[in-house]
């Protein structure tokens, strides 16, 4: 066990216990030992001055792609977990669209062990909903949960077969895990590479209408209503989706939803010039959509923020737009982007930001952490909400460099990431 850590004089922000006050935090034996007020450190404790910094429950990103097994040239569980730690995340949930697909207990166990061996952020594996993500047969949820899976998803593509989705929502209730849907009607989105609108018409790129997402959103909400299962909707990108989730929640449906940092900060205009680092699925949308997503986060319709961290090899993005792969890396920019676009303009309070990045993810995915309550695991993010820095992709811990924020100045940066009482990232250290 590492030495006790005493974080002195930081601004303790923990919405899980309604806390926002300057005070100390003591971590002993991987647990929160004391929180708030002035705490005297025990013998041998390392004291860290946190004056002027925010001390929050460790941030959790429930939507990342770590590419292992299969594309270790692009990212590994270790490099991804390292990037997560560097971005202030104490835990991530790794999507199962690996090669082979993480659709069985062996692969789930492998990903979990790779995460433990790396020793950076905690890595919680997802299992696939269907065998091989083929959308035909249910994968073995029970075995995968036994091996460490915390949720199931066929992310990368939707579960098009509504019967299969219904069954998944029913079956998952045995294990108390959310069914996580990538919302897309493939036949409508087919061949599209950006938001459908004036810019796509001008650029001659096939567009993806917002309805391609929204139709699947309402289908999943209705199936969750039918089954009583917990549906969690991935990376929502449109105003219509926010409205539909709001309706679902009003109806008492067990629906939760997430939004990516890029969807609350960038619009379709970023694609102009055929910038493949602005290509992702779902695509960047209109300013009206961005405003609705921000509002959805504020009023709680959207539960939480994610990155959809999706590393690609540089030459995979170095091609004509329509043929370039979807996705961007996000672990190391998310906090800065969220502070810059949500906290700075006053859309979210600091407490709300911590809630959407730490508390809600833990709650929705039934993960440990997300709180600094005495006795909880000692996962902590220490960040500077006022620090300005310029994004330099060459310095990323991730193997991926594909970011639309390269060269941009962001406000807000993780200073220390602590996992189980152990410092796994130290910016100025």
């Amino acid at each position, binding site marked *: 066990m590492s030495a006790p850590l005493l974080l002195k004089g930081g601004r303790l922000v923990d919405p899980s216990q309604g806390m926002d006050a300057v005070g100390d935090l003591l971590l002993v034996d991987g647990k929160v030992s004391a929180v708030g007020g002035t705490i005297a450190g025990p013998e041998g404790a390392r004291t860290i001055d946190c004056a002027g910094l925010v001390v929050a429950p460790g941030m959790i990103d429930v939507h990342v792609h770590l590419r292992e097994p299969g594309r270790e040239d692009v990212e590994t569980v270790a490099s991804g977990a390292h990037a997560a730690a560097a971005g202030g995340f104490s835990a991530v949930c790794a999507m199962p669209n690996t090669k082979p697909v993480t659709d069985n207990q062996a692969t789930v166990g492998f990903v979990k062990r790779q995460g433990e061996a790396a020793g950076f952020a905690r890595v919680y594996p997802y299992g696939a909903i269907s065998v091989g993500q083929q959308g035909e047969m249910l994968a073995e949820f029970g075995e995968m949960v036994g091996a460490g899976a915390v949720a199931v998803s066929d992310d990368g593509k939707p579960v098009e077969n509504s019967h299969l989705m219904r069954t998944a929502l029913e079956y998952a209730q045995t294990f108390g895990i959310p069914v996580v849907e990538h919302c897309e009607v493939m036949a409508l989105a087919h061949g599209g590479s950006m938001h*459908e*609108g004036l810019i796509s*018409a*001008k650029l*001659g790129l096939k567009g993806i209408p917002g309805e391609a997402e929204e139709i699947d959103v309402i289908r999943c909400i209705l199936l969750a209503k039918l089954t009583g299962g917990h549906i969690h909707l991935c990376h929502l990108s449109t105003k219509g989706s926010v409205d539909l989730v709001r309706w679902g929640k009003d109806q008492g449906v067990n629906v939760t939803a997430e939004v990516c940092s890029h969807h609350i900060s960038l619009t379709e205009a970023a694609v102009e010039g*055929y910038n493949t680092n602005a290509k992702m699925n779902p695509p960047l949308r209109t300013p009206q959509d961005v405003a609705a997503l921000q509002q959805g986060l504020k009023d709680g319709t959207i539960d939480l923020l994610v990155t959809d961290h999706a590393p690609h090899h540089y030459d995979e993005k170095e*091609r004509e737009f*329509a*043929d*370039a792969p979807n996705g961007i890396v996000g672990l190391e920019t998310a906090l800065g982007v969220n502070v810059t676009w949500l906290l700075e303009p006053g859309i979210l309070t600091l407490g709300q930001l911590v809630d959407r990045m730490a508390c809600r993810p833990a709650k929705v995915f039934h993960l440990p952490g997300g709180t600094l309550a005495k006795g909880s695991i000692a996962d902590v993010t220490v960040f500077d909400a006022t620090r300005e820095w310029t994004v330099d992709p060459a310095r990323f811990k991730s193997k991926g460099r594909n970011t639309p924020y390269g060269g941009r100045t962001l406000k807000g940066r993780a200073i220390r990431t602590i996992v189980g009482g152990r410092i796994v990232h130290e910016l100025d250290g």
Partner: protein
Amino acid sequence: MTMLGKDLLGLAGLSREQITGILDVAEPLKEISERTIKKVPTLRGMTVVNLFFEPSTRTRISFEFAEKRMSADTVNVATAVSSVSKGETLVDTARNLEAMRIDMVVVRHPGSGAARFLAERIESNVINAGDGTCEHPTQGLLDLLTLRDKLGSLEGRRICIVGDVLHSRVARSNIWGLQAMGAEVAVCGPRSLLPGAIREMGVQVFDRIEAAIDWAEALNVLRLQLERMEFGYIPSLREYNRVFGVTRARLERAPRDLLILHPGPMNRGVEIDSDVADGPHSVILQQVTNGVAVRMAVLYLLAGNKASLAEVAKTGGAT
């Protein structure tokens, strides 16, 4: 006229002065093709690569004539691309070409933005000979030249583009070019083959071909890609001809004689009837003739423009 930059990637962003400048240079170049010795020494010693990732006979031959009449050395590279290997092929081909010290690349590619992609990565001048559904600027220019030959100034003239605008780079280059020249632009076709944002592009929409013919002074009839039917955009070619075909009967009811343009190759009996294509108001062959002159003009006006101007070109589609 404001000079062009390193590349010609599209007509979007070109000013009326720039377009007029190209057409004014093309005008006297028409005469060269009428000479016994159809050749001027202008581009002697320059190497032009016609890099075609998509089958094209007309455009490639037109460029090749233009290059040869300007005395450039021409190399044709025709590469079929599978959808998987497109990207690597384009980057790698670009690097290989640069290593062979060429001066200009004429590129045709199925991916929108491919010409710009290439232009941003090589020093040579790049001429877009059609990229995906984005632009086909030299086709747009030859259409403008043909219309100008017949109508004089394009200011306030009413031009309707008929057919599959959604998948047409010719339509987009025409829209930007015609708008820059002050013309009124409309489109006519089934809504399933028009971009949803078409009106935001400053374009009027006609649902019925009869109304379009009633309004327009010229029709630019697009080729209907036969595979559109397979993907369910229209039910059948027969019905397309019935509803949207440019037929003599329809033109005879027009309040005025309409110029008929078509970028070719034509599907006779589908989007255009033979007696219209071969009729007195068809300028389809003049388009072909003008195509060579326009391409000679573009080759000439880009020759020697260095990469230092490429930055400007990036910001404006082409400058």
